[in-house]
């Protein structure tokens, strides 16, 4: 079984007429497996969009290579099985339903397939009432939903989404989130680049963090959030006064302690006649992890002007 999306030592340099070149990606390697929702994070200018554009064949790597659904980047036929939503959605000024059908037809869908699938995807994204309106009159959020509709029209095996919910209202955001979870349940793979960390935290099975064009963290989301240095110990039958910072609630005492004090704290509870109910590694938010990982570190990615 081949990886759905693979980067192998990919470097991308943008050459400038004056001032050398700028390295957007440096020896970047990554594998995305089938059936996962993969979160792709990084601060602005980290190289996320460059990586996505390389995968879609919009540009060529300076060195290295990669594959999309088992075929090298840029293979046009493979894109028939891919749905792509760019960061800034730019669409032709047409009626939403016609536009979605146009993009489906570009992917080789037949008229009858489009007649069935077109209204389906518009309804999935809550655009059924606006299907006959020209998208040039749409709000940014609605445009983003039409962009998602054109990405979903061919029922793709792989969805590559660059900031898919950045302009959406909370209701639409939930709708899209459910749609993505549903897609994963049917075996689809989703490569999701987003700055909305709470969303990544909720949706993604694995997360990669890119910084200055380099992969700085790759882990399962659950592991990433649990790799804290603190644990929460819940106990009964002990007084809160024995432990500083302990919180008592409904007869349960909760104590957060550094991991290296875990054993000593448990021993103290037992000695005091208490019972341990649970010992849970403290969860961090993805935001904390992100900030820690992307804390400014020396960069040598710029080889020229930058």
């Amino acid at each position, binding site marked *: 079984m081949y990886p759905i999306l693979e980067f192998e030592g990919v470097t991308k340099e943008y050459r400038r007429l004056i001032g050398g070149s700028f390295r957007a990606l440096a020896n970047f390697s990554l594998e995305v497996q089938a059936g996962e929702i993969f979160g792709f994070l990084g601060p602005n200018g980290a190289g996320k969009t460059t990586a996505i554009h390389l995968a879609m064949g*919009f540009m060529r790597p300076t060195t290295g290579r990669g594959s999309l659904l088992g075929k090298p980047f840029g293979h046009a*036929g493979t*894109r028939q099985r891919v749905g792509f939503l760019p960061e800034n959605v*730019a669409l032709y000024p047409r009626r939403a339903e016609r536009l979605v059908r146009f993009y489906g037809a570009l*992917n080789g869908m037949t008229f009858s397939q489009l007649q069935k699938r077109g209204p389906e995807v518009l309804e999935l994204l809550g655009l059924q009432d606006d299907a006959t309106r020209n998208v040039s009159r749409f709000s940014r959020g609605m445009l983003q939903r039409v962009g998602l509709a054109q990405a979903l029209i061919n029922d793709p095996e792989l969805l590559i989404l660059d900031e898919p919910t950045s302009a959406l209202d909370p209701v639409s955001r939930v709708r899209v989130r459910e749609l993505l979870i549903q897609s994963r349940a049917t075996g689809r793979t989703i490569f999701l680049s987003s700055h909305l960390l709470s969303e990544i935290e909720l949706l993604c099975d694995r997360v990669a963090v890119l910084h200055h064009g380099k992969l700085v963290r790759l882990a399962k989301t659950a592991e990433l959030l649990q790799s804290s240095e603190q644990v929460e110990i819940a106990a009964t039958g002990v007084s809160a006064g024995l432990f500083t910072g302990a919180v008592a609630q409904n007869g349960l005492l909760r104590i957060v302690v550094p991991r290296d004090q875990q054993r000593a704290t448990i021993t103290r509870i037992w000695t005091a006649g208490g019972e341990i109910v649970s010992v849970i590694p403290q969860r961090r938010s993805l935001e904390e992890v992100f900030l820690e990982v992307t804390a400014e570190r020396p960069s040598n990615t710029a080889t020229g002007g930058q």
Partner: protein
Amino acid sequence: MKAILLIAVNFVREQRWPILVMLLWVLLLAFLGLSTEAARQREDLLFVFKQVAVYVVAFSVFFGSSAIYNERRSRRILSVLSKAVARDRYLSGLVLGISFASAIYCFTLGLTGSWTLGQSGFAVSEVWFLMICLLAACVLAGTVSLMFSTFLNPFFAAGATAALMGLPALATYTSGNSHWGLAIPVYALIAVVLKSSFDTSAVGPWLPVVLAVCESLIFWFVAAQIFSYVDIAVSVE
């Protein structure tokens, strides 16, 4: 083929306003046909017809040189090329779109020319031969400018196209050998239109037309090769 056709039709749709402006010139000819006495002022009518005819070549250069730039600047190209559309097919769609836009103009001008010039004694078959020459010139000029636009901005692409189109004319003028005009026969084809008259038959050899079609294919191939190496997601500003 379906994708090529879709891109071509979409191109014409996107360029509907410039095409409409072009057609206003044809309307001018139709107005002259209505307001003048065709038999007495036929030379003036033919002059306007020739003038209106050659405008379309300039328009096709404009279409070709700006097509990719506009799509890249608006970032709409990403949504198209994220589908199962290879870059050479995308270019084929644009060439076909430019050809469609030029064909609409040539067809309309052909109809108006047949009516206005036909009633003053110009053979209708000659009008349509001139339109075929004009269309062939437009397709070649549009393809050459599209090729230049794969690596130059529209202004320079249009300039480079004009220079390349003008070289055979210059060679013909300096050497006195008219065969130079067949090298890149846009000038030769325009000359057929410009030299047409009531006295001599305009229907001449088809060689420039055939050469124009063949050279369009060659320039399309070169454009596709260059375009396959272009980073299209990079800002064109």
